[in-house]
Structures are given as C-alpha cells and as structure tokens.
C-alpha cells in the first residue's frame, strides 16, 4: 500500500510538471501582447519596450518559464498585469465560490440521484424506473446555458424568487443573501451530475441485486429498505465513486460556464476575463491551481476505493 502511494505520488508530480509546461507555453505561444492591454493600443513603442523588459517578456521563453516555475515553487504565483493584485489572492478570493457551488450542487445531485436510483433498481422496468430513466435522458440534453436563460427568465424576472445575474454577496457578509444567489447556479450545475450519478448507480445496483449475498439477506427476512441501503448501496458506490472522479473536470468546466453567465466572481469568471486581457500570470496561475486540484481529487478518490471496498489492495 505504502509503495503504491509513493509510486502514485511520483506519477502525480510528473503530471503536474507537464501541466505547468502546458499552462505556460499554451498561453505564451499564442499571439497577443500584454503590453497592449496594459498601456492601451495607442501608446508609443518606447514605453512598450520598457514595459516588456520590466515584465521580463524579452527573455527567451525557456528562461521565462524557469523564472515563473521557480517563483511558483516558492509559493509566489506573481501578480496580475492589470490590477496588480497577487494571483494567490485572486485565487483565494475566487476559489471559495467554486467550492461552495460544487459542494451545494453535489449534495443536491446525490440527494436526488441516490434515492431515485435505489427506488428504480428495486423494480427495473417498472413505472418509476421507466419514468426516471426517460427523465434523466431528457435532462442529459439540457445544456447549462439554456437552463440558465430560462431559469433567469422564469424565477428571477417573472417570479422574483431568486436574484438575477451579478447579485453575488460573500457568505461572510450575508449568509442568507449568499445562499439565495447560489441556489440557481447550484441547481443548474446539479442537473448534469444527477443524470450521471443516477444512470451509473442504477445500472450497478441492478447487477448487485442479482448477487447471492442479496438473496441470502432476503431469505434472512431483512427488510427491503435495509437491504437496499446497507447491503446493495455500498458495493455499488464504487462505480459512483469512479464516476465522481471522471466527473470532476467536467464539473469544474460546468462551474466555469455557470459562473461566467451569472457573473459569479469565481475562478471561471476570473480566468475568462484574464484570457481576454492577455493577463499571462493570472491565467497560468489559475490553470495550474485548477489542474492541481483535479489531480489531487482523483488521487484522493483512488485512495477512497480501498476504504469503500477493503478487498481492493494495490500492489
């Protein structure tokens, strides 16, 4: 086990190294000049050249990379060219919004998907199963941006239940208002996950329920509810866990789109704006941060497999 973890850890470092290369060169090899956004398009060439060397953009690319990664390894992600705010600060103010959005949406998704899947798997092809399978199919075809357009129209403009876009207030300032503003985006984000979790869990439960230990539990006279929650759910949650790992990068992408559309100042909102402003260090910093989070979450999920099912040991 320890050897497996160490091996995984080094693989992880390798992946992160390549991601840092990707984050850096992807941004730098593209056309676009940050000095134009900083000084405006009309400023003279002399000022621009001075700024270029001040930002270190005149150095060879590999040299710029080494300077950047050297600073990153010391915990310094640099500062935004535009606002001069430090990138770590931008991340630390924006990330809690993504985290809140993802946590609320996942709790919502699991609290709907798990009971529905359990009920559906009890009678495959029954009325409830067919209804929820068909519904999940329809939900799969609802892109987040269409949901947002119609949710805002119905719930914000017509019904005034939730505030419209751009009404984010930090949780620490006003928890009630904050949650009200987060409900709509969380629901939108949850819908995509509900479908994935429901379909995977349902499929896995149906095959689990055909196994012998379930028959044994039934013949012991245990209640259906007890069998479903205690005997069937645990082995089936392995598939759920695996799908959560695959889902995480899609979830981050979804959160980015939702944030941008509803003007929630999370990482997605920040990164799209920084890309538009050719703000190299901010884009690189956020990209690297997001990649680290995704890789770490997958690492933890891999570890959780052994917790959920102790029979799995890694050699």
């Amino acid at each position, binding site marked *: 086990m320890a050897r497996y973890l160490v091996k995984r850890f080094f693989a992880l470092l390798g992946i992160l190294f390549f991601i840092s290369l990707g984050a850096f060169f992807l941004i730098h090899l593209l056309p676009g000049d940050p000095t134009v956004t900083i000084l405006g398009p009309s400023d003279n060439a002399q000022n621009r050249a001075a700024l270029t060397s001040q930002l270190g953009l005149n150095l060879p690319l590999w040299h710029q990379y080494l300077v950047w990664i050297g600073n990153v390894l010391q915990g310094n992600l640099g500062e935004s060219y535009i606002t001069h705010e430090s990138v770590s600060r931008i991340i630390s103010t924006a990330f809690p919004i993504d985290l809140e959005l993802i946590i609320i949406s996942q709790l919502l998704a699991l609290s709907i998907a798990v009971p529905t899947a359990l009920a559906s798997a009890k009678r495959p092809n029954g009325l409830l199963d067919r209804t929820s399978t068909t519904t999940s199919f329809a939900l799969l*075809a609802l*892109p987040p*941006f269409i949901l947002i357009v119609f949710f805002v*129209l119905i719930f914000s403009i017509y019904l005034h239940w939730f505030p419209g876009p751009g009404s984010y207030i930090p949780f620490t300032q006003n928890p009630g208002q904050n949650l009200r503003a987060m409900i709509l985006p969380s629901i939108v984000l949850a819908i995509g996950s509900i479908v994935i979790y429901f379909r995977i869990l349902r499929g896995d439960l149906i095959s689990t329920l055909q196994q012998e230990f379930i028959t044994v539990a039934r013949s012991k006279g245990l209640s259906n509810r007890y069998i479903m929650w205690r005997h069937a759910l645990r082995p089936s949650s392995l598939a759920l866990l695996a799908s959560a790992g695959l889902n995480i990068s899609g979830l981050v*992408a979804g959160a980015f789109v939702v944030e941008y559309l509803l003007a929630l100042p999370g990482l997605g909102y920040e990164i799209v704006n920084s890309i538009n402003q050719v703000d190299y260090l901010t884009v690189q910093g*956020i990209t690297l941060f*997001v990649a680290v989070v995704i890789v770490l979450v997958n690492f933890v999920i891999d570890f959780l497999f052994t917790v959920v099912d102790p029979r799995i040991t890694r050699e």
Partner: protein
Amino acid sequence: MSSASSPRAQEPLLVEESLLNATRRRAFGVMFWICAGWIALVVLLALLASVLGLQNPTTENYDSLNQGPTLAHWFGTDDLGRDIFSRVVYGARVSLIVGFGAMVISMSIGASLALLAAYRRGKIDLLVSAASYVMLAFPALVAVIAIIAFWGHDLWKITLIIGVAGIPLVFRVVRAAALGYATRDFVVAAKTQGASDWRIITKEILPNVLPAMVSFFLIGVASVVILEGALAFLGLSVQPPTPSWGNMISESRTYLSQNPWLALFPSLAMILFLIALNLIGDTLRSALDHQEGKL
C-alpha cells in the same frame, strides 16, 4: 465488460453479423426511428438551406421587429427583424459542422492511436497513455477558450481545436475497448498465420470495437454541440451576424422578457437535436451490449 461473464462471447464476432442479429432480435423501437428522422431532417435542411427559398438570415427588417410566430415568419422575428426560422436552419450548419467535424478529427486520430497502442503495447502504449493522462488532467475548457481567444474564432479553427482537445478522451475509451480483444485467440491465430499488424488491427480488432465507437461518436457529437453553445455565450464561437444556435440563444438574453420566442426556438432545436443524438447512441449501445450478454 459484459463479455467476460459469458464464456461464449470469447468467440470472434463480426460486426455486420452482430448488428444484424441485434436488429432481428428486437427492433430499435419507434423512438429510435423518430430520432433518426429528426437528425436526417436537420442535416437535409442545413444542406439545402440556400436553395429552399428561405429569407436571408442576416437581412434586417425594421418594419417587423420582435414579432411572435406568424404565417410570414413561422418562428417570429428577432430584435433586428430577422427571420428566426431561417436563422435556426442556417444556425444548424454551425452545430453540424463543429459537432461532426470535431468528432471526426478526435475519432480518427484518437482511435488510430488507441488501436495501435492496445495491439502493440510496450513503449508506444506507455508514451501515448501518459500523454493522454496529462492532457486529461489539464482543464480542457481553459485550453480551448485560450486557444480560440488568441487564434481566432472562425468555424474551421473552432472545429479543429475542439477536435484535437477530444483526442485523449477518445483514445482512453477506444483503448479500453480494444485491450479486451487484442489478446483474444482469433488475434493470435491471425498473427500465427502471418497477418501483418495493419491487417490484424483493421480486420480483426477494429470491427469488434466499431460498435462502441459509433455510439461514443454520436454522444460525443452531442457534447461538442453543447460546448459550441457554451463558447457562443463567451463570445468565442462564430461571430454575429452569422447565426448559430448558441449565439442566437446568447443574444436573446437582452430582449428575453419582451420576446421569449427569441430563445425558445433555437433552444428547442438544440435540445431536440441533443436528445435525438443521445437516444440513437444509447439504443445502438444497449442493442449491441445485450447481444454480447445474451449470446
């Protein structure tokens, strides 16, 4: 895979045969054919848009702004008086080209690499697998947004960028499917008969993973269409006044409370298109899956 549970599934299975059996055993159902018909209709309309005598999708008409559906304008008109029906039809071109184009790129490159890696194993497999892991860990949306933002947002560039971004995912899926076949007896038999690698990959392994690829392809097209829509909302898809479903829905937000029709028709077109793609992909997959399980 379900194949492992059934001993008889170890026998080689030709695709044509398996597809035929699946259709014979149980019809795809009415919904399947309705969906296939809908996709065919969308493709046909998009292809023939310029010869159908539709109104010009970019001609502005200030005498009829923000109208609801009428006989002259089936889906109504937008805030510049342009005919929404014609814009939805022309907009389908963007979704179709980006959706199918990007998946053709991802599939052809991703699947070729996957088949090679699964059959040869060794260094090639290690290298390409490692590269695919790195690419998958990289936030793909960020990469796509950045490249499109700097490189330009014309239709072909968007298609190419999304297509390349999809390669690692296709690679992983097809490799996983192909691995199960690469060591089967019929592959070994072909090898001992002196068949070339090319022949083994194309004649022995490919036909077996093709069904999985087809359904993955269709579901992939649906995801790409959604991605194009999201890019349109970020202002990174084809530029107005060229219509795409995504940028029509995005532009509709300004006048939404006065004229909900603006968002309704392109949204419906996109949703029905996505449902159809998903349903066809899913039906094909389960038809072929059952096939193996029930043998």
